């Protein structure tokens, strides 16, 4: 069953006279599927992800979530920002609780859930600290915890690992992938924007490769390699080369 369908999305920024950013993009994600969007920088990936999230209205086309149109951010779809986007004036636990803002839970229940997920992301000891003392990797873990604390069905991630060192990135990637593939948990789909081909091939069931200006879908590539994927594997390397070939003009 399709979780998210992106149907004929077009987008032009109103203020820039007819600079078409996204032309006609369609793809979908299935249950327990990890889908990546990859393309040259400035091609409109972040814009597309924000359209999917309901943050920006498309000029034409539709976003569907289990068949229902998404016109504004909804509870089941969560978001991980590129720069973690924590609120500097809130402690880490309060930042995670922001993810529960729209729920009716009592404050002590919110606290319990937030503490649990912070522990899962190995942030115990930093619950009551402010984000400014955390490293970039820890900040992003709080950002992911905030996105997952409400048990969303879908998370959208905008280059979530691009500013982390490789070791931190690797463990966080696994955490997200395991959350998705674990069928006892609520998460049904992940859409990730990235420009890192290896990362995309390691994680994705499906890669949407975009072209530049205005961006169009060049190809939607399925990756059938079994998880966990080994970057030194011959098939892995072959897939990486294929994606690279598609990306170069």
């Amino acid at each position, binding site marked *: 069953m399709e979780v998210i369908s992106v149907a004929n999305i077009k987008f032009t920024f109103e203020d820039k006279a007819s600079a078409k950013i996204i032309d006609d993009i369609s793809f979908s994600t299935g249950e327990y599927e990890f889908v990546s969007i990859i393309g040259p920088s400035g091609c409109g990936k972040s814009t597309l992800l924000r359209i999917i999230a309901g*943050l920006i209205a498309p000029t034409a086309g539709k976003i569907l979530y289990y068949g229902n149109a998404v016109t504004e951010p909804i*509870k089941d779809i*969560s978001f991980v*920002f590129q720069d973690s986007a924590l*609120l*500097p004036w*809130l402690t880490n636990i*309060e930042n995670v609780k922001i*993810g529960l*803002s729209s729920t009716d839970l009592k404050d002590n229940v919110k606290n319990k859930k937030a503490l649990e997920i912070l522990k899962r992301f190995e942030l115990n000891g930093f619950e009551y600290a402010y984000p400014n003392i955390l490293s970039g990797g820890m900040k992003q873990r709080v950002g992911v915890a905030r996105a997952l604390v409400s048990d969303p069905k879908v998370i959208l991630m905008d280059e979530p690992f691009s500013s982390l060192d490789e070791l931190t990135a690797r463990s966080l990637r696994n955490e997200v992938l395991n959350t998705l593939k674990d069928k006892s948990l609520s998460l049904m789909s992940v859409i990730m924007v990235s420009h890192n081909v290896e990362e995309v091939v390691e994680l994705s069931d499906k890669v949407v490769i975009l072209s530049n200006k205005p961006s169009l879908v060049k190809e939607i590539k399925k990756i059938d390699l079994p998880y966990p994927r080994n970057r030194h594997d011959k098939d892995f390397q072959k897939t990486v080369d294929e994606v690279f070939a598609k990306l170069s003009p």
Partner: protein
Amino acid sequence: MLSLIPEILSLLLDTSYSWVRMLLALAASIVISLAVGIGAARLKTFGKIVVPIIDVLQTLPILAFFPFAIYVVVFILPGIIGINAAVISLIITSMLWNMIFGVYEAIKTLPVELVEMTKLYGVGTFERLKRLYIPASLPRLSEQLSLSWAIGLFYLVTSEIFSTGNANYSVQGIGVDLAQLGTSGNFLYYGIALVIFIGFVVITRLTLFSAFDKMANRYSLVGYDTNKHKSRFNISYRIDHSIMFHKLKQEYTGIKTSISSSVSKHKEFLRKFGYLIAGIVIASVAFLIYSNANPNALSQLGSYEWIAITSLAASFLRVWGAFLLVLAVAIPVSVYVVFMTKRKNSYLLGFQILASIPATVLLPIMVFELRNNGEAVAFMVYFLSGIWYVIFSIIASTKYVKLNIDEVKKIFRVKGLIAWRKIYLLAILPGLITGAVTAIAAEWNASIIAEYFISNSTGAVLTSVGTGIGKLLDTALYSGNLYLMLITLINMTAMIIIFNIVVWRRLYDKVTSVYT
């Protein structure tokens, strides 16, 4: 209709007089800020002394020193020249601080390669000034001009109005006209004068400032934020380039440039040093007067202490009462503009145009309408002097974090009380604090016109509060009581410095330690 023409011509002439003062002050400020700014940035010891002093000076109620300055300057330079010199130097002291910091910042952030290059090629000091430092300062200087001009206009009008209080100290200018026309209830001419004044404001911005901008931006270096598309009315933009905000913004966005690290490294030391210097200056002025005058000057000063401190207490209540109203208005208005409306830019433009018209042009009409209610006039003047600083400071400070906050808020559907508690109020806190510091300083500044107003034609007291520091300063001036003036200033300055150390610095440091 025809009968209006001579009056309009004379208003135009008077406005020109005022503008001559403004332009002279601006020219002097440009020269001084280039000299001091470049000096402070390039000469280590000079910078270490000058930067903290300026930091203190910009929070002092310089306008309150005006009566004292008039007294001293007119004593040295009698007559119309003296009073004009006093007005112009007052305007300079209001314009100067953020301009100096603009230049200082420009030189501090100058690419090292450029300086090294001039050394390698053996370029002399004068050539280096002419070909490198001055041109490199111009873009930032030009960014500061509008804020300086707006503040200068406030001081111009205020000092002119103030000078009308006493025929001996009267100048010719639009502020004087506004005061006379307003207080005599001559609404037609008052309206015409107001239109002329606003016309001058708008024309100056569109001609002089745009020309300077254009000229200065020719020298803009790669990587400089020249903000070409920013409106000329964009006071919030100017405010966020003032030094207080500059520091905050750096800590806010985590960008540590050389200036903040060099300033903050010795922050504590420099700050104390600055206060020490200010203290010494005040003490030596006091001592000079003491030693030159009669031997019982000290006991004379002491005998005024009680009246000074009670007056200060009364004004303190007024200033802070008005500030509470400022908060009650500014917080919802800024939160609405920053977080809720889609037409933020239209509101901003509206505010910027409004704010570029000094609140004091409305004073005469307030005095006329509220003749028997000195408290109401004082409250209104305090309120109007402070409100824009808070609004613009908040709007400017949230500009840099806005996009993320907005998206986080929407994605996690943060609404209602939670949004106010966890987002809006906390997000505006740094801007609120810097705004509050400047707003309170502006309110204290306005005390000499807020609390006491006399007609220069009759000398009659038009409005007056019961007791207050502004009133005390004014009456001290009119009666030529130097000791009273001095003790009043010392009390006021001491209170402001203590308040800065005890309240603002602590709050500020606490907030910046989290908002990195």
